[in-house]
């Protein structure tokens, strides 16, 4: 197992390097001259534009700019935003906990709703409860999270005024207020995830329940609970684990629309503002971080695979 992990870790280095080239290369394709904007837009003077260009290293070759950026990124220095007077690393440090809070809660909702629904449906395919779960999960998948967010805000914040419509309170400041501000984003983000997960679990469980080892387990006289939970579900969880891993990485990347709706100062809001402003250091930094998150979570998923299915690590 240790060798497997080391081998997978070694593979991530060239992958991240490739990602860095793509991230930097794509950002070079963005139209417009940020030096003009930084120098004051319509008030910019030619001298001011030149000064801004030098400060931003835009007067250097693309390769030199990439070298400067990559050198900084390796040391954790992702540069400074063109517009907001803060380093990208500091801003990510402030904003990442917000997105992490949202993602953890949402993935919790996804799991606690999705897994039992998938199990209930999977152990009795074709039953009435299966049809209800299948219909519910299809509906959940079809509902866009931002629409669900708006409905939840309208009901629970505007009409009932039970929950705040916007804002974020750090956990360290007040755990209860932290949760109060996040219930709606958790549900809005977690329900579509749960719908997808339920379908995955159901499908995988139905397949697993038809395998020979399940018949053998039954023949041995194991109780059904053990057959389902220990033998069938463990083997059926490989595909759902992949889905969960990708969902969690996606959530950690920041969900732009949800963070805007709930005015959450997370990565999505930061990235959205940077895109509008063509704030290259921020775009590069956030995309690189997101790629890193995907790589790390994929690695974890692979390790989990290897745990769930020893054939993977042997291969």
């Amino acid at each position: 197992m240790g060798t497997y992990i080391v081998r997978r870790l070694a593979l991530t280095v060239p992958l991240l390097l490739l990602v860095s080239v793509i991230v930097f290369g794509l950002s070079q394709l963005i139209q417009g001259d940020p030096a003009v904007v930084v120098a004051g837009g319509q008030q910019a003077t030619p001298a001011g534009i030149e000064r801004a260009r030098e400060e931003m290293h835009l007067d250097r070759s693309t390769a030199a700019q990439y070298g400067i950026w990559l050198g900084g990124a390796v040391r954790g220095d992702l540069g400074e935003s063109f517009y907001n007077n803060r380093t990208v690393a500091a801003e990510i440090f402030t904003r990442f906990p917000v997105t992490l809070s949202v993602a953890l809660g949402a993935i919790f909702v996804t799991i606690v709703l999705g897994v039992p629904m998938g199990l209930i449906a999977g152990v009795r395919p074709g039953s009435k409860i299966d049809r209800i779960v299948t219909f519910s999960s299809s509906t959940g998948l079809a509902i866009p999270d931002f629409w669900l967010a708006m409905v939840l805000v309208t009901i629970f914040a505007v009409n009932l005024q039970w929950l705040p419509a916007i804002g974020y309170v750090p956990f360290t400041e007040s755990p209860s207020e932290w949760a109060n501000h996040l219930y709606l984003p958790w549900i809005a983000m977690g329900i579509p995830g749960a719908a997808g997960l339920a379908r995955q679990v159901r499908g995988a469980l139905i397949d697993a329940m038809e395998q020979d080892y399940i018949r053998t387990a039954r023949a041995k006289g194991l109780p059904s609970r053990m057959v389902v939970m220990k033998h069938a579900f463990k083997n059926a969880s490989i595909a759902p684990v992949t889905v969960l891993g990708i969902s969690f990485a996606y959530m950690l990347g920041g969900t732009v629309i949800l963070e805007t709706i709930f005015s959450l100062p997370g990565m999505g809001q930061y990235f959205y503002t940077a895109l509008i402003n063509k704030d290259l250091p921020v775009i590069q930094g956030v995309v690189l971080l997101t790629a890193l998150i995907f790589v790390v979570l994929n690695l974890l998923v692979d390790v989990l695979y290897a745990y769930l299915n020893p054939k993977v690590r042997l291969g």
Partner: protein
Amino acid sequence: MRELSQGARIRGDDMTSLNSVASRIRGSVAIVAVIAVGGLATVACGGGDSGGTSLRYGYDMSAQFTNTFDVAESKGDCDAVPMSYIYSSVLGYDPISGELLPELATEWVIEGGAKKSITLTLRDDVTFHDGTKLDAAAVKQGIDRNNKNDQLSGLDPIQTIEVVNPTTLKIQLKNNQAMPLLYTLADARDGMIMSPSSVDTAAERPIGSGPFKFIEYKPGQGITLERYDGYWEKDTYDFGGIEFTQVGTGPPALTALKAGSVDMIRAEMESLEAIESDENLGSVVQPSGAYLQFQMREAYKDGRKSPFADERVRKAMRYAINTEEINRIVEREKGEVASQPLPKDSPGYNASIANAYPFDPAKAKALLTEAGLPNGFEFTMAIPGPGIKNMADQGQLIQDQLKKIGVTAKIVPILGQDIATQYYIEGGGDAFAAARLASMFYPTAIDSQWGKYEFVAIWNGAENAVITDLMNKALGSNDQAEIAGFVQQAALYTSEHALEVPIAFMPQIIGFDKARVGGTFTGQYDICKAPDLSGLKMK
């Protein structure tokens, strides 16, 4: 749940055990449901906001605040909104009449000819929030420091600042344009004065002498200000503080207001109907100097002429564009139909040209024929966007209106941050249908568009000798009546030569929660100007 056991028909030999599994799963779901309901119940009991006497002002800081309270580092005009409550400025002004008002300086005297000087007399009863007394040395230090910001080019004409005595400053200029400098010192950021003790910390912990003192800033979340009881204009503000709260522009702001999460927002025009139809909400519609405009390029930097180089074609545009229709649809008739770059209340407004170009497509067609374009022509019209509703609506209406005289406008949206580069510098269009921001000192509304060496004029090929001469006279004059006369002449010239199609002045809208906010207050004169909250009362 009952259906599960009734419907369990597979693997009959395991019926009991499977029911046991299902029962456990059902139990888990039930526990989650109980936790969720319990959570909501807790929230329902404790989720309310006590509010207090602070005003919770919903503001899109992520888009309109550049994370610094130091004027020297500020990178955005809209930073001025929260800063305006923390810092006092050297001077104030009435945005409608354009009149300069005393603030930290109570008197200003202009002297000299080709190179003028301004002597400022300061109040002697002002203390900063840290207790430091304001004097001429602090004001000099503040202006010098603000002048380090490249974006604040209005301070460039300053040659030297001399401290005459603790309440007197003498500013020596490099040119004769003293009035523009005075207005610059009344402008949002340029004239804000910080405490000398906060020079190194102003970015994060600003200390000014304004009506509210800084308490806390949480990036992406909010700014907390508390009323400063030592404010030099005592009893102006009758509420305890301002909490700027992050809300996204548009629908998220409106939702936050309706939910009671904030007390006040700057609203978009498309939100006004929703505010007016909600009996719990109120609105303030403030006239503004910003205006919708169809701006025409006369020539490209490389010497190419645009179709609008011909004055007859420009006049055809003025007759063909139905400004009243655009005001009705885009501004919901809340705007003021424009005939020139300045609104009716401005001293520079020229009443003689108010009806110079009535909507007349036939006349527009005749002018095109006269210009040798009987079948019209095609051109590229840049608009800010995509995704900016009022700009898209305006562009669409202009496109439709011009089509009726045979002119085809191809719409090209350009992101706000790229307008300077893509439209002006790179020549990305023959015309630009957008909104022109309000000018602090009203002559600059004209000078900045057609004056020599002005950015827009340079790249539009629109530097105009007559306008430049009139504006030099206006900007060099110390006499308000004389300035107004020159500006009116310039406005007449812009109309006679159809240098632009002014469409409608855009109101700024504030929405507020009637249960929390009362009193009288004004909205923002421009998107980056703070509303005057001095008459506001919290309930």
